[in-house]
């Protein structure tokens, strides 16, 4: 297979563009051709019946913004011709998770209730990416309102397939993002992570996903799920492209009070510095923990998939060879409570955030007869929301209602403090471990088959078991590909660091890439690209 423009890294596209060797329009056309080749039938909200061909294609895009993209690409080419600097991401094709508002585009959140919503403004991170010259190719699929770990809960079906095996899920909720990037349907994607929604799909699809520190990237224009947890961040094919993208989106924003006023470092400057002298921890609490048995669904103590564990331990060995100091047996005892805490906190916040969808101001409205306004709310929300939003709203109501809650919400917020303390102790410069980062698996297992878990909301939630603690703690997490399992499916490993330590995580990730660049799995291509 010869490498098409759509398969090149963002930085290489920018270099070729600035050297006048390719045009932004050519890069866009290459991407649109790839979309044509691998995408299959477009997801829609019509009643869905799976067809065999659906399990061979990607179905990542809910909306393709071809005209808008062409106009942007032409503007980049004009700027180049006029000798102007078109920006650090000039001409780079970008897929935006359809949870971000982009002015003039349908912004659906994967839900019928927003199916006809045209955003009147653009989210800050998208605005910054466009200002840097990136070309928005379209809006990609996700779990409805980001509620899920497989992308199957979207109102727009077929669900995205995993490019490595389209009968399997790409993960979620940023499933369309990770699948599109892995299949060359976009060079970069902007995702969001609330419990692992950037890192888990990145791991399943063999790409790089970075959940920045909470507050590192503005949430303005992000359709809210759990406001104390939601983090926008990059999905890319390698660490350097993720660094390049974070550089553009990071930083404070007058329109988001939680976007922290912390200077943005040069993420590329330290990338090649290696890991000599860095302390990298391994924790038994990320290798062996309580989660549902895939057969019975019962919660029990069990180890993660041995192939995934082996990939983590091998990465530790390679990083040690590269000069890092590996610290074993770092206790993270509250990791196992991440999901129960999440079941409470995220539901309370989701129920609150989803009250705004009422059929009055925007979005779907039930158009049959209604008795009064309250009846309109019930009928609109009953038909507009899918099962997963309903489940989250009802749980949020239950655990926050004074007569039922038995202190669950406050208790969850206090256990969240204990989870945060685990990280603070591990990273404390004066403490016993003094870690620069923790190395773990991203997911307990590799990608599962479409339909294998969906419907069991407890088992599905536990797909985020190893990612959700970082969301509770607010700390950054980077998932990078670390090999393929015996079924040829990508394995992801995760680096977790102190607040605002993205530069260090990227540096360690890059060191791992260098240590493994000659390995055979790095040459392997996703199944959907074979024969193209």
């Amino acid at each position: 297979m010869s490498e098409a423009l759509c398969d090149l890294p963002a930085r290489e596209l920018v270099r070729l563009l600035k050297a006048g060797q390719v045009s932004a329009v050519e890069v866009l056309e290459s991407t649109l051709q790839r979309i044509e080749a691998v995408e299959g039938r477009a997801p829609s909200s019509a009643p869905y019946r799976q067809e065999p061909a659906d399990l061979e294609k990607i179905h990542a895009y809910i909306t393709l913004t071809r005209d808008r993209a062409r106009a942007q690409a032409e503007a980049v080419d004009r700027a180049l011709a006029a000798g102007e600097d078109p920006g650090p991401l000039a001409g780079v094709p970008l897929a935006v998770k359809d949870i971000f508002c982009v002015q003039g585009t349908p912004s659906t959140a994967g839900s019928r209730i927003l199916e006809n919503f045209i955003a009147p403004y653009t989210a800050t991170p998208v605005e910054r990416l466009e200002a840097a010259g990136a070309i928005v190719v379209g809006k990609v699929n996700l779990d409805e309102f980001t509620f899920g770990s497989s992308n199957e809960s979207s109102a727009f079906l077929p669900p995205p397939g995993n490019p490595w095996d389209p009968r399997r899920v790409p993960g979620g909720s940023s499933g369309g993002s990770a699948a599109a990037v892995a299949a060359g349907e976009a060079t970069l994607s902007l995702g969001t992570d609330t419990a692992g929604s950037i890192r888990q799909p990145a791991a399943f699809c063999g790409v790089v996903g970075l959940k920045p520190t909470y507050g590192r990237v503005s949430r303005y224009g992000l359709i809210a799920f759990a406001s104390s947890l939601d983090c926008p961040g990059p999905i890319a094919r390698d660490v350097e492209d993720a660094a390049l993208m974070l550089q553009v989106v990071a930083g404070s924003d007058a329109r988001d009070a939680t976007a922290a006023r912390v200077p943005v470092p040069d993420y590329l400057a330290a990338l090649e510095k290696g890991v000599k002298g860095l302390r990298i921890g391994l924790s038994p609490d990320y290798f062996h923990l309580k989660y549902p048995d895939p057969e019975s669904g019962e919660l029990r103590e069990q180890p993660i998939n041995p192939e995934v564990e082996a990939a983590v331990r091998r990465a530790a060995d390679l990083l040690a060879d590269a000069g890092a100091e590996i610290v074993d047996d770092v206790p993270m005892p509250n990791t196992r409570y991440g999901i129960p805490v999440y079941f409470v906190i995220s539901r309370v916040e989701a129920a609150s955030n989803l009250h705004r969808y009422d059929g009055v101001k925007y979005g779907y409205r039930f158009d049959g007869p209604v008795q009064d306004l309250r009846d309109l709310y019930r009928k609109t929300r009953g038909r507009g929301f899918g099962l997963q939003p309903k489940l989250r709203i009802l749980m949020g109501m239950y655990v926050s209602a004074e007569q039922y809650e038995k202190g669950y919400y406050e208790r969850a917020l206090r256990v969240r403090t204990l989870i945060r303390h685990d990280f603070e102790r591990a990273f404390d410069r004066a403490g016993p471990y003094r870690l620069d980062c923790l190395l773990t698996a991203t997911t307990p297992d590799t990608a599962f088959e479409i339909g294998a878990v969906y419907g069991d909301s407890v088992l599905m939630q536990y797909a985020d078991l190893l990612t959700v603690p970082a969301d509770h703690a607010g700390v950054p997490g980077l998932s990078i590909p670390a090999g393929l399992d015996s079924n040829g499916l990508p394995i992801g490993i995760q680096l977790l660091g102190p607040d605002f330590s993205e530069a260090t995580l990227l540096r360690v990730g890059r060191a791992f890439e260098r240590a493994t660049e000659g390995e055979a799995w790095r040459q392997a291509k996703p199944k959907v690209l074979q024969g193209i």
Partner: protein
Amino acid sequence: MSEAITSHIFNHLVELASLELSEEEAEYLRRELNGQMKAIRELEAIQIADDVPITSHGVTYTPEISAPLREDRSEPWPGADDILAGAPQVEGRYVVVPDIPHEDLS
């Protein structure tokens, strides 16, 4: 273990949430809620010292890194027509809703 969320409680939650559900949906949702409660109940067993505060965001927002409060003044939005165009039912520049439930006090 008895069900945390009985039909009675479930119906109350559905009313609070303003959701009209089919029987099939209600059955699925109540079963899943009770399944999730089994996981949530793990939290009851955790020993938490009395001095452990709540965490509302993972990251600690010190004054140095927090955004300053904006001046409290209105700013006209340039795209009001676009916003109105998104409303399901309008008359002129008003958003239309059905009757609002009320009681006559006369």
